[in-house]
């Protein structure tokens, strides 16, 4: 087998990526319809994309995905492949719930929400900073260490839910009171602001330039005086801030309470998938995360007819996988030589 690189125009790559994404989506839907009644599945797909209610819900769901994806676009541009957004989202939503429902600190309304969000962001950033410090000072690979931290965050929050936060006979926490909940318009505004902010950092600041240079040529970046430590710590703090913020907004806009997680809820992982799908472009990432959250809504309707909720993440990874393969076919020519002596 020979793999030859070839030059592909931007249009060709975009076209192939779109075809790939669509193919992945269709394959995933077909796999689900093999097991269930195909007409039920199709009806749910149509319902999600033709009504306003699911689209509104999708915009709500997209905030944790988009926030973590936008932070990760910066990190991935610096070739800092952290997967820790999941744990940061979980911690962000947990600390928000704690601050509003359990801490007993009563402030005036906008300030308490603001303080909760700031607290969640800081916690996310600190959790993300652990990964960066482990990478810089101990040489630990950031992929595995961030994954392990996700599990630690999940089990810690599960423990809190099962013990001190639990109310009544069921393992469920208190809910966020009605007046603290955020509206769709606020979420849309946050989405736009975050996207523009990420784009601004990437395209208009010295730090964004240093990220780009360090990602493409680490040695050259060092030679020109960009400090790798500063870059890695910077991107990990920003991605952690954003993921924690996403978790806080998720809790305030649609989650409202926590239940024990047997497997990760997946908003952070979806952010990782979106960052890969969008080739680390913030604007595409925002659009892609709304698309992905329509799949979350679809998953919830499919759940009613017997598809497990974790299939959402499977549909999404099928989409990303086939997109990556489709883009690769635009970039490489592959020649098979079956008989090689």
């Amino acid at each position, binding site marked *: 087998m020979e793999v030859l690189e070839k030059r592909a125009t931007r249009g060709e790559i975009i076209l192939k990526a779109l075809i790939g994404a669509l193919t992945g989506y269709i394959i995933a839907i077909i796999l689900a319809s093999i097991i269930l009644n195909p007409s039920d599945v199709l009806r749910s797909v149509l319902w999600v994309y033709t009504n306003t209610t699911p689209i509104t819900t999708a915009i709500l769901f997209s905030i944790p995905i988009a926030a973590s994806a936008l932070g990760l676009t910066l990190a991935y541009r610096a070739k800092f492949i952290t997967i820790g957004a999941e744990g940061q989202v979980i911690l962000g939503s947990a600390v928000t719930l704690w601050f509003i429902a359990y801490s007993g600190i009563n402030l005036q309304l906008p300030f308490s929400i603001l303080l909760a969000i700031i607290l969640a962001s800081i916690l996310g950033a600190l959790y993300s900073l652990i990964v960066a410090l482990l990478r810089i000072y101990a040489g630990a690979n950031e992929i595995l260490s961030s994954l392990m*931290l996700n599990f630690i965050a999940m089990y810690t929050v599960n*423990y809190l839910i099962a013990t001190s936060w639990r109310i009544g006979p069921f393992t469920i926490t208190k809910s966020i009171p009605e007046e603290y909940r955020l509206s769709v318009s606020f979420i849309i505004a946050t989405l736009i602001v975050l996207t523009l902010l990420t784009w601004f950092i990437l395209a208009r600041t010295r730090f964004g330039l240093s990220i780009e240079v360090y990602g493409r040529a680490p040695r050259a970046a060092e030679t020109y005086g960009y400090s790798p430590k500063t870059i890695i710590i910077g991107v990990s703090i920003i991605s952690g801030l954003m993921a924690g913020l996403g978790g806080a907004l998720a809790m305030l806009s649609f989650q409202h309470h926590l239940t024990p997680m047997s497997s990760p809820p997946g908003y952070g*992982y979806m952010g990782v998938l979106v960052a890969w799908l969008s080739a680390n472009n913030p604007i595409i990432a925002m659009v892609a995360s709304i698309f992905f959250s329509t799949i979350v809504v679809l998953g919830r309707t499919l759940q009613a007819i017997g598809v497990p909720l974790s299939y959402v993440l499977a549909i999404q990874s099928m989409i990303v*996988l086939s997109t990556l393969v489709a883009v690769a076919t635009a970039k490489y020519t592959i020649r098979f030589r079956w008989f090689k002596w």
Partner: protein
Amino acid sequence: MVDLSLLLRVLSNAIPIMLSAYGELLVERSGRVNLGVDGIMALGASMSVLVSAITGNTMLGLISGLATGLAASILYIIPVIVFRVDQVATGLLLVFLAWGLADLIASIGYRVSPSIPIGSLQYNILALITVIIPLILWLLMYKTWIGVEIRAIGYNEILARERGLRVDTIRAIMLLIGGALAGLSGSYMALTLYNGKYFTGITGGWGWLAIGSVILGYWHPVGVAVAAYSIGLILTLRPYLEAMGLGPLSISTPYIMVILSLIIAAYISRSPRFKPPRIL
């Protein structure tokens, strides 16, 4: 003082981690890292439960778990080996895909057989295999030319390619073996550890622990066996730690141990004599 039942329990916890870790060891020695182990384990678990529920034969279930692992690793080989897609991305995508598919397959299981009791598999045979496999792997890796080729590909891919080794073929074979072993370990987990039941999140991140134990064992067959055994020991001691009042820390101990092993491995690899394969 030696409590044999505790030893057996540790071994039964360690076996799934060991099996996946051996497969991952071969993969990483040949210069790739398959992060999809955890997903393949879940897929193997749910497939084996389904097959043994339908046929009523646990051995058949075990074999189907192995076959599922083979099939799932093709999903990794096509993007990574053929299309040169980023291996980290593909591995993680495979995990999520396999988790979802495993739950989907389990949902058929509930419709086909609401309550077929499944006799759990005896773990004697597999326990024996788990002791023998590291020896075989050690012989393969350090005493045969195939082992030299595998290690050469892991150390320096370009040089191996120029020397005429079939890099892609060998890697694909290693990935297939790794996938098969991961599927087997998943089905072992479902059929013996959880008495023939499948549930969402059955692997509990043990696939990641397997990858961690490859690093902790410093890419050596015997070292990996010891590392997997010690992680199995910690998993067994988890309830005792929890009883000591350590709370969430006790559940997270194996994960913290993997992070520590990453640090230790990074420290050792600074010395020129002990270079790990280039995996990432």
